[in-house]
């Protein structure tokens, strides 16, 4: 479980860590939109440079960021192969028997791969520098206009934060159950299909039972401390915008505007 980097918080102290989660979420969306605005490789170079600076500012190790690409490797490979076979635009580069590789295939693939990589870096930056709970608070605040439409933003945020709170505990529980069943001779890896199904059941059923038990207990504990679903409460954790947060939002918006202008300008030039 320790090998998964995507989406894991890295407790460090850096200017990026200290940014308000709302500013970071807004920045993430703005950058994502930038990626999808067609500005060619120049645009990607700008975003790439910006992300490198952010990663350094966030004190993230290169190896850590690289590791976050791992889960996507297979998909990128698959895309390259498919593109190589189906894109027939641009100049032909070489031909082996009946297969010809076109330059269009290479540029198209590069576009997609770079986009994917940039997106991964952006999300990694956000999740690695923002505590899960702060993230929920940020999301809750950003969604608060929806309350007018009777969307229960607060309850949703509460659910997410409780889920986050109990994930480590459930993982521990799962490990305990696996060990307990292994002591009864369960072999999760070997055996016939029927045996494997039983082995998995021997993990899942107790885990569910324990989950429901926890949910029951937790509901009692919350109710006893005066929690009522949908009722008014005073939130303890308040997020506060600081100068840096305001600047971040201003900057990404300037960037976004720049990208849009560039795209329009390039579009016109191409048309000419």
């Amino acid at each position, binding site marked *: 479980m320790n090998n998964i980097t995507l989406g894991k918080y890295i407790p460090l102290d850096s200017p990026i860590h200290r940014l308000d989660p709302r500013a970071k979420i807004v920045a993430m969306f703005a950058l994502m939109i930038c990626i999808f605005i067609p500005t060619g490789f120049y645009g990607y170079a700008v975003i790439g440079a910006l992300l490198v600076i952010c990663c350094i500012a966030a004190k993230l190790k290169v190896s850590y960021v690289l590791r976050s690409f791992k889960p996507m490797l297979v998909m990128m490979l698959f895309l390259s192969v498919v593109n190589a076979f189906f894109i027939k635009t641009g100049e032909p580069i070489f031909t082996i028997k009946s297969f010809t590789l076109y330059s269009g295939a290479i540029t198209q693939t590069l576009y997609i791969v770079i986009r994917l990589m940039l997106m991964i870096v952006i999300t990694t930056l956000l999740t690695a520098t923002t505590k*899960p*709970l702060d993230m929920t608070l940020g999301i809750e605040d950003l969604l608060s206009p929806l309350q007018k439409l009777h969307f229960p933003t607060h309850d949703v945020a509460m659910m997410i*934060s*409780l889920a*986050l*709170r109990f994930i*480590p*505990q459930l993982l521990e529980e799962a490990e305990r159950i696996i060990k307990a069943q292994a002591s009864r001779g369960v072999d999760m890896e070997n055996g016939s299909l029927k045996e494997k199904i039983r082995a998995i059941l021997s993990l899942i059923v107790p885990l569910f039972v324990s989950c429901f*038990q*926890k949910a029951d*207990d*937790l509901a*009692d*504990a*919350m*109710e*006893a*401390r*005066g*929690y*009522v679903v949908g*009722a*008014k*409460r*005073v*939130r*303890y*954790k*308040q997020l506060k915008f600081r100068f840096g947060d305001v600047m971040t939002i201003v900057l990404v918006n300037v960037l976004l505007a720049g990208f849009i202008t560039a795209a329009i300008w390039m579009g016109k030039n191409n048309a000419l």
Partner: protein
Amino acid sequence: MSVIHVKDLNYSYEKGKPVIKNVSFDIEEGSYTTVIGHNGSGKSTIAKLLLGLLEKESGTIEIGGLPLTLENLGEIRNRIGIVFQNPDNQFIGSTVRDDIAFGLENHCVEREKMDGLIEEFAEKVSMTEFLNSEPGKLSGGQKQRVAIAAVLAMNLGIIVFDEATSMLDPTGKRDINRLISQIHKENKLTVISITHDIEEVVQSDNVLVIDHGTVAMQGTPEEIFKNEKLMVRMQLDIPFVYKLKNALAEQGIKLADTLDMERMADEVCQYALKK
């Protein structure tokens, strides 16, 4: 003055299988009451009924003169709080600070006052240095301390402990028992403790013995333990000093009445060493 008044209380989880049968009792304001009875006797069910976590079938419950009804539920929970058995399953916040804040948030305490309250009560249970710790980093005993701080911070008059020490190691047990009696004295709280720890029962003012969903007996620890027949019939443990007193009585030795082990040792030594 009685702060909890229960009369003819009935409850069943399944139709036709009552677990609480015509239970009536009164609890004095500021007293320390222990509730004993073996597992499945209905002790925890009574605790949940008192907090309105289960809805009673019939009978009355009054907390500080206010009858427990659906409409009064909010006010009732401003008066009575509970610390449960499992330290993990009642830790709601993601840090100690957030967990203590949770109750305050629900009771709509002003935001400006929260920090002060959180720090005050963390101090009271000696958890100040852990304020920003996550529950995974705390021992069971420490988590129970946080649960106690969270209830205390809400400024209630009555706290119920539902086997709050039964999942802790001996150190944690001793710790929490000491903390309970300390807050009982200092904060003039009414404490109701459901327990299997017979030595804790000795320390309390008042004992409620629950058996098969009924109150088998209520009285001071002395009165309860004197009723040896009842204790044996209900398969309840009795304190060491009482066991020894009974065993000595079988040998025809009668010593002065005491509940304290040190004094008992004095008596025994005097008796055995007397010329």
